């Protein structure tokens, strides 16, 4: 708790410093590196240049779950789209496993906010789609698909079509589809925003379990401070537009201890959550004043 507090204090002064400290503590090479990423895009209606991101620097290490929170329009989704390769960028660099990002690729898996599983494919066919695209032989494909169907708890729904699934199940299907392709980094864009509150809590616990089981490197974008604090090893708070990395809050709680029955009594969780909330609120009020 004390340690987390100090990290936060330092992060407030200079967020770059904490990243360097993080790198020194971790001898592994980072899986995802973003350096000096600045982005402008033309507004869809007025054509004016919108300054979305300003000098973003971050590193994600293997098995780490990093969440990104910030007020609406702070460029969280822009960042994710750039990392996914769906949005070209000009200033700064972003790389996965040392390969600079130029367009989409199977080394990055994306879980979209809205249901992006294909309505004309069954659950199993959707989950195996990435392997199909890479021409993995059918026998191997089926084996891996079953493995991830079981992992996300969709056993028995293999042959259902998406319209026969609940919102929560559709998102489980998306998570399984992404994991099945075995990406280096998993990018999640507010994946639980569209499901009901009860399901959301369950999905958060499930993702925690999956992160533990697969040891995936995950960048998780969310609106919900609670969700960010519950899931993340580190939470990045973005400033109002243009999005800057305002603060990094470490949440040092072992994954085994993270569940909603005892999280609300966990002092580290509470202090991290309140810290993030205060930080985001500050930015929201700035955004409103503008």
């Amino acid at each position, binding site marked *: 708790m004390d340690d987390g507090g100090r990290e936060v204090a330092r992060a407030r002064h200079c967020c770059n410093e904490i990243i360097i400290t993080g790198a020194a503590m971790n001898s592994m090479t980072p899986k995802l590196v973003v350096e000096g990423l600045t982005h402008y895009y033309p507004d869809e209606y007025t054509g004016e240049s919108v300054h979305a991101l300003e000098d973003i620097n971050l590193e994600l290490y293997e098995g780490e779950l990093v969440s990104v929170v910030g007020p609406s329009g702070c460029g969280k989704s822009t960042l994710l789209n750039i990392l996914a390769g769906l949005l070209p960028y000009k200033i700064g660099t972003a790389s996965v496993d040392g390969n600079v990002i130029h367009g989409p690729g199977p080394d990055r898996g994306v879980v979209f906010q*809205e249901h*992006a599983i*294909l309505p*004309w494919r069954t659950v199993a066919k959707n989950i195996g*789609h990435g392997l199909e*695209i890479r021409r993995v032989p059918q026998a191997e494909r089926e084996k891996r698909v079953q493995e991830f169907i079981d992992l996300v708890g969709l056993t028995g729904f293999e042959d259902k*079509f*998406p*319209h026969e699934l609940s919102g929560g199940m559709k998102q489980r299907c998306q998570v399984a589809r992404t994991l099945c392709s075995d990406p280096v980094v998993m990018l999640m864009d507010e994946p639980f925003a569209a499901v009901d509150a009860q399901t959301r809590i369950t999905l958060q616990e499930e993702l925690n379990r999956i992160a533990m089981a697969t040891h995936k490197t995950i960048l998780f974008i969310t609106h919900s401070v609670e969700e960010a604090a519950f899931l993340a090893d580190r939470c990045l708070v973005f400033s109002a537009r243009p999005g800057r990395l305002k603060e990094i809050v470490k949440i040092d709680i072992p994954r085994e201890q993270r569940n909603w029955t005892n999280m609300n009594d966990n002092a580290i969780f509470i202090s991290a959550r309140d810290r993030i909330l205060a930080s985001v609120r500050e930015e929201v009020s700035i955004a409103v004043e503008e």
Partner: protein
Amino acid sequence: MDRLWWHFQQLLKIDAMNLVILVIVVLIGWTIISETIPNPARYLPSPLAVSLSSVDMLVKGLLPSYYSDTLVRLIIGSSIGLAAGIPFGLLLGLNKTVADMFHPMMNFFQSVSGIAIFPIVVIWWGNSDTTVLAVILYTSFFPIAFNVLSGVREIPIRYVNAARTMGASRYQIMKDVLFPGAMPHIATGSRLSIGFAWRAVIAGEMLAGRQGLGWMIFTGQDADRTAEVILGMVMIGLTWIILDHYLLRPIEADTIERWGLVQR
């Protein structure tokens, strides 16, 4: 197959009864009118007279010959039209700029009916089988191509993005996302295309003077054989109902409804 059988049973259960009653009512009404007007053989021959004429034409072998001519034209013309129109619409849909550019043009051509282009085609190829085939091709190509293009444009971009993030190539995106995503439009577009082609065959045979059902109706009028005219009309309508109910609709139902893209 099970589904087809289910449709067939449903038809037998409810529709068939209503249909039989309706047909009987129409036949009775028709007979009464034809019995009360003067010179029914010229203005409105009774159902019985039409049946007798059809038996006569069957025996002479004219009806089967005309009918198969017409059907073959429809099948050849509309299959080429669909086979060309579906990929064309998909290819245009691959690129948003190209799609936006072609959309008004496709809309223009799909609105100019087969009859309207007939004169120019006759100027090019005269009263020939080529002319009839060209008109059928034209009428079936544009509705399907236009519908497929619209369908591709309506596919949510997130489906395409999802495939792209999994490393799909352009061809894989077309095969796995655009084609199935445009399926509802392909199904309705096909029905529309075949329906237009069916009209175009009849009109083409009349105007270009090629043998077939259209020709039969046209010469029937010329030779004052009204029973043949009515027989031709009935054949046209019945053929479409059978085609639509037993071929086109089950295909539509089997793909789209199962995917939950269209709810009935």
